[in-house]
């Protein structure tokens, strides 16, 4: 069944996002939180990786973390924004959660 993956590190400082996207199966979901949200922005070196993942996975980003970092605009199309309540809904809607710390 489907899994929720959370990524909380900047893609520039950790291979968490890359490893996550290599392992995550089609139909699973990835939630970007904390410094992980930098990967949601357009124009970064990691945009192609994220675009590729969006073809068969859902990608979410935690809006309060985007706002805190001043990067809530210019996001990659197809990434859905969630608040903390949405974060909770995602964890209950999936069978399990894998945190890529």
């Amino acid at each position: 069944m489907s899994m929720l993956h959370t990524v909380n590190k900047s893609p520039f400082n950790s291979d968490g996002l890359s490893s996550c996207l290599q392992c995550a199966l089609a139909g699973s979901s990835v939630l970007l939180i904390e410094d992980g949200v930098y990967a949601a922005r357009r124009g970064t070196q990691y945009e192609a990786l994220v675009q590729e993942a969006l073809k068969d996975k859902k990608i979410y980003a935690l809006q309060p973390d985007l706002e805190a970092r001043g990067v809530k605009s210019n996001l990659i199309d197809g990434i859905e924004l969630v608040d903390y309540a949405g974060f909770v809904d995602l964890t209950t809607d999936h069978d399990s959660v894998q945190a890529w710390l």
Partner: protein
Amino acid sequence: MSDEQVTKKFLYVNRKAPYGTIYALESLEVVLIGAAFEQDVSLAFIGDGVYQLTKGQDTKGIGVKNFSPTYRALGEYDIQKIYVEKESLEARGLTLDDLQHLVYEDEDDDWAEKDAIKLVSAKELGEIMEQQDVVLSF
């Protein structure tokens, strides 16, 4: 002991994004201390450190203090040299327009307001590092 003021060149190198870790805030506190002792202070932002300077940061949603307005006070401490490494900006899809506008008043030019942020290459930053008495890395 001499009363003579010793002035050294201090460079603070910032390499971490804000909020995810405590480094950015701790660096800022140390920078303000150094500036208060009237040292020759420069700041460098490289790698994820460039994210510290983004404008429009709003931390209400994460329950953490937004310390980004403090960067605008650096000019009041006569900090005139804020180096941003341009390849780091480009790799993150950012331009100077995405960063806060930081200024200082130039004593030698009738207190004209001038831009504190200077875009530099990694090589130029390396040269700046070599000119310092003290380099502190965060």
